[in-house]
């Protein structure tokens, strides 16, 4: 099973980036990239590729393959093969069409049954938390998977800080709605803004992560900058991107894919090789960059030991 989280003590101090510096770095990199672009191309506008290339992958990722037994997917694969329908429905679209998106300044509105609701600046959310590398397998509902070194912190840390009341049974997340910067929000391919949700105990689980980076560098726009959710035992679409709102609610929220097709997508969407998507089997997956769909899918994506107690007594065929 692939799970590895590194606390600060595991990481050489030279590799740790404090949140303030990290947030400043985004600006710095953009400025540097802009300068480069101006110099090289004589004033052509900056695209996300230039920014991506100017980032260096920290040394700690170099020899991870041997430690894990399973290879990490490359930075390029992780950042050029994305399902982010706000930028287009082809896997290449998000990396191509997200250049105009502005991930800063960023505010997250926290609402509902909490003692400390309000508009939180991203910097304020990040300053007290300890950032970690979290290496998870991402299993897409389309039956492919990747191993991705995310960079983030447990969602539970944020939840504790805003003090949910007894009425908070579920969390409802919302992606930003900016049709000017997200071209497919002008189409009706899905209903916008994108909505996802978690039950409170799922949200509090230590594996559930709010992510701000990948490979120790800032999250590119196409991967859900500047703040996204990663729930490794659920299908990838549960990992809502570019979050602007977290609402603590009493009723189970309806997530976007369930809204689009309730026969095929449910609220829980736990990775389960025994329950097929009505249109394709979920028993096997293609572990990219492998060509063959021969990798057996594991119950809860391999995290059964950690999470199966959450669903004790539930019929997982019914609660898809």
């Amino acid at each position, binding site marked *: 099973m692939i799970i590895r989280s590194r606390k600060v003590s595991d990481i050489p101090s030279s590799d740790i980036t404090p949140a303030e510096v990290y947030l400043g770095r985004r600006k710095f990199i953009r400025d540097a990239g802009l300068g480069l672009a101006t110099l090289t191309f004589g004033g052509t506008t900056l695209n996300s590729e230039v920014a991506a290339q100017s980032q260096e992958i920290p040394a700690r990722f170099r020899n991870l393959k041997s430690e894990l037994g399973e290879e990490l997917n490359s930075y390029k694969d992780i950042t050029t093969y994305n399902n982010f329908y706000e930028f287009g429905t082809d*896997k290449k679209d998000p990396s191509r069409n997200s250049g105009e998106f502005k991930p800063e300044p960023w505010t997250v509105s926290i609402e509902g049954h909490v003692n400390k609701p309000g508009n939180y600046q991203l910097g304020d959310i990040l300053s007290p938390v300890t950032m970690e590398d979290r290496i998870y397998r991402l299993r897409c509902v389309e039956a492919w998977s990747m191993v991705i070194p995310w960079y983030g912190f447990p969602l539970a840390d944020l939840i504790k800080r805003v003090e949910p009341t007894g009425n908070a049974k579920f969390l409802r997340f919302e992606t930003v709605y900016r049709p000017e910067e997200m071209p497919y929000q002008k189409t009706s391919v899905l209903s916008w803004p994108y909505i996802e949700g978690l039950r409170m105990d799922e949200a509090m689980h230590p594996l559930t992560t709010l992510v701000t980076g990948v490979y120790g560098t800032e999250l590119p726009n196409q991967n859900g900058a500047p703040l996204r959710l990663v729930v490794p035992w659920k299908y990838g679409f549960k990992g809502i991107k570019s979050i602007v709102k977290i609402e603590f609610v009493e009723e189970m929220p309806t997530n976007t894919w369930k809204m689009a097709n309730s026969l095929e997508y449910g609220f829980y969407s736990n990775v389960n090789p025994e329950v097929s998507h009505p*249109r394709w089997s979920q028993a096997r997956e293609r572990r990219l*960059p492998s060509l063959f769909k021969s990798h057996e899918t594991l119950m809860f994506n391999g995290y059964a030991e950690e999470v199966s107690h959450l669903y004790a007594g539930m019929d997982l065929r019914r609660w898809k």
Partner: protein
Amino acid sequence: MAMQKKSLIFTRGWISAAGSRPRPSLLDCMIQKQRILVSKVVIWIGALSPGVWLLFGLFLNWLGPNPIETLTHITGMTTLVLLLVTLSVTPLRRVTGWNGLIRIRRPLGLFSFFYALIHFNIWFVFDQVFNWRWMVEDIIERPYITVGFSAFLILIPLALTSTKRWMRRLGTGWTKLHSGIYFAAILGVIHYYWLVKADVRLPLLLGFFLSVLLLYRVPGWLKRRRRAVMRSELADP
């Protein structure tokens, strides 16, 4: 006047000979031959280019982190587009009055089958990993695969009987057998529509073109049916 002459050239000799009009000259025949040659070259280049692009992409790493997905999508799409182009030969022939176009129908249909064959084999090798049991399970349990596989099965005898010899041997049965292309095209578009997750715009566009091509044929079918009924009534009053 020029228009009239053009339509004459491309009408079969025995029809035009019935009137007092001149027979097509040797020059006209040469022009027609050249046109067919040119359209065949265009078809070969057009139909082979997606395949060549994929082949280069495979070796030069253009196809992204999931090359099998790209290969599957593009070969499937090319199959459908070529099927629709094949089906538009007859309407185009009627509209332009250029009967020579019929000569490009067979290569178009065969190219479409060629891509369907690659599409199927990619699925069998890389998705089913040569496992017959998995394959049969998927064909039975997944409706979009059931219809896609049926479309492929329908195309096999059409490709095998596409030669002139089979055309002669089967006679009127050949036309009947080859009307299977309509079913293959319908099933192919349904296959595409059923497999996309949310963005159904392209499958709907292909469905629209297919309906136009099918609707164009409806009056002819009705007429032929009426004629057949009349004939049987005459024979058996």
